[in-house]
């Protein structure tokens, strides 16, 4: 059991029988009044965010999510198909439930699928993934007038900002927590 004073960003709790993750957290204490814990929570199934204020001493059931190693197979419309690496069982997760993770999925990619009461509700990505740049403007050597970053499209269709020296066809590392360029991969 958690109490209100355990609340912090990233904590997963059960509210009205559904799993939520704390996305924003603020401690308030109006003069001579009680401690209040103001939170934004995202429903891990529907993706919807709610605002809730809790008092000191209120308790929460931790949302215990099962993680299973799976492989991303393919995408069909809004449906993403995965396969359990042990049982070979196939499951589907909707684009909505995947959130930003969809930007980093390529076929045969291995990751952890999160299950809540046997229902797949999302994925846990590694902090860093390597993906190939399929489109970006060429770098004009010696040109200092251009900005420090330029847009690049990855093989997943995701567009991000990269340093000017990155060329089409190169492999780069992306921080999945921020969605930003991390480094160039030497092949």
């Amino acid at each position, binding site marked *: 059991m958690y109490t209100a*004073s355990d609340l912090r960003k990233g904590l997963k709790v059960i509210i009205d029988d559904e799993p939520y993750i704390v996305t924003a957290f*603020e*401690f*308030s*204490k*109006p*003069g*001579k*009044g*009680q*401690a*209040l814990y*103001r939170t934004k929570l995202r429903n891990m199934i529907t993706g919807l965010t709610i605002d809730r*204020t809790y008092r*000191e*001493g209120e308790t929460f059931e931790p949302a215990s999510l099962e993680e299973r190693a799976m492989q991303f197979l393919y995408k069909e419309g809004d449906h993403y198909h995965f396969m359990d690496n042990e049982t070979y069982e196939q499951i589907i997760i909707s684009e909505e439930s995947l959130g930003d993770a969809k930007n980093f999925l390529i076929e045969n990619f291995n990751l952890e699928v999160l299950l809540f009461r046997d229902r797949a509700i999302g994925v846990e990505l590694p902090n860093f993934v390597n993906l190939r740049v399929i489109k970006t403007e060429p770098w004009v050597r010696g040109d200092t007038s251009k900005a420090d970053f330029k847009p690049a499209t990855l093989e997943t269709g995701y567009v991000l900002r990269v340093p000017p020296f990155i060329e089409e066809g190169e492999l780069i590392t992306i921080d999945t927590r921020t969605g930003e360029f991390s480094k160039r991969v030497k092949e």
Partner: protein
Amino acid sequence: MAKNWPLVRRKKALQQRARILQGIRQFFIEKSYMEVETPHRIPTPAPESHIDAISSGSWFLHTSPELSMKRMMAAGYEKIFQICRCWREKERGSLHLPEFTLLEWYRAEGDYHLLMEECEELIRFVATAIGLGEKLIFSGREIDLSRPWERISVEEAFRCYSKTSMSKALEQNLFDEMVVQDIEPRLGLIKPAFIYDYPAERGALARIKQEDPTVAERFELYIGGLELANGFSELVDSEEQRRRFHMENENRHSFGKPIYSMPDKFLAELDHMPPSAGIALGVDRLVMVFLDIKTIDEVVAFTPEDL
């Protein structure tokens, strides 16, 4: 050999903080206040419903110097101030540190209205001392420091800013929630604002208003939505004070919090205290407001997490 970069970055803010502290001292010296020091480690804190002390052996670290300073007032020290560290259990957020710096001052022959004026004078004096003029920028707003500042009663504030009335909020036990959600973010946005006349049960050590026994002569100062100070006309009746402490302890018990023993020496001397007014002002937050800094971590050298 790692250099502490956050601490390097805070140097400018900490230099300004030092100037602010000097400005505060200068103000009180010029107003003939005497600087005092009272023990940080005390046998028992004042019983208040929602203020929890950190224990230190079988004693406690003080949550404010209030009781000791009032004992000095009762002994005839008429205008005193103190700048000291205080400790409160489990208070941590972008506006809270469990160890923080409080400025408290007390004066005989004065009530909470007089203190509001003194607050205006102090903050304007310090603003000048650190080279700010009549205006400051905080949290994206330009705040006008020219006198008089805004004054609004708690009841009026509920009428203006909340869909709920003050009496309804109290009845539904949602007073704090409404203050935090509806009222605080609207206070002191154009000029600093004093919000005054709190429900009687929200001021365990404040005098009850003669014309209206449902409210206490207590106020808070807000600048740009940030609570900076809490002041009141002091309760100087020991019997009434003892009764209120018992009520606060009953509340504590009902919340499952430890009960504090009666501060008997304070109560025994309280009847000698002249009619007075006293106030506590959060120095860390004052620095935040003057320097337009959003988190309290950036105005101290070390947070608990940095140690």
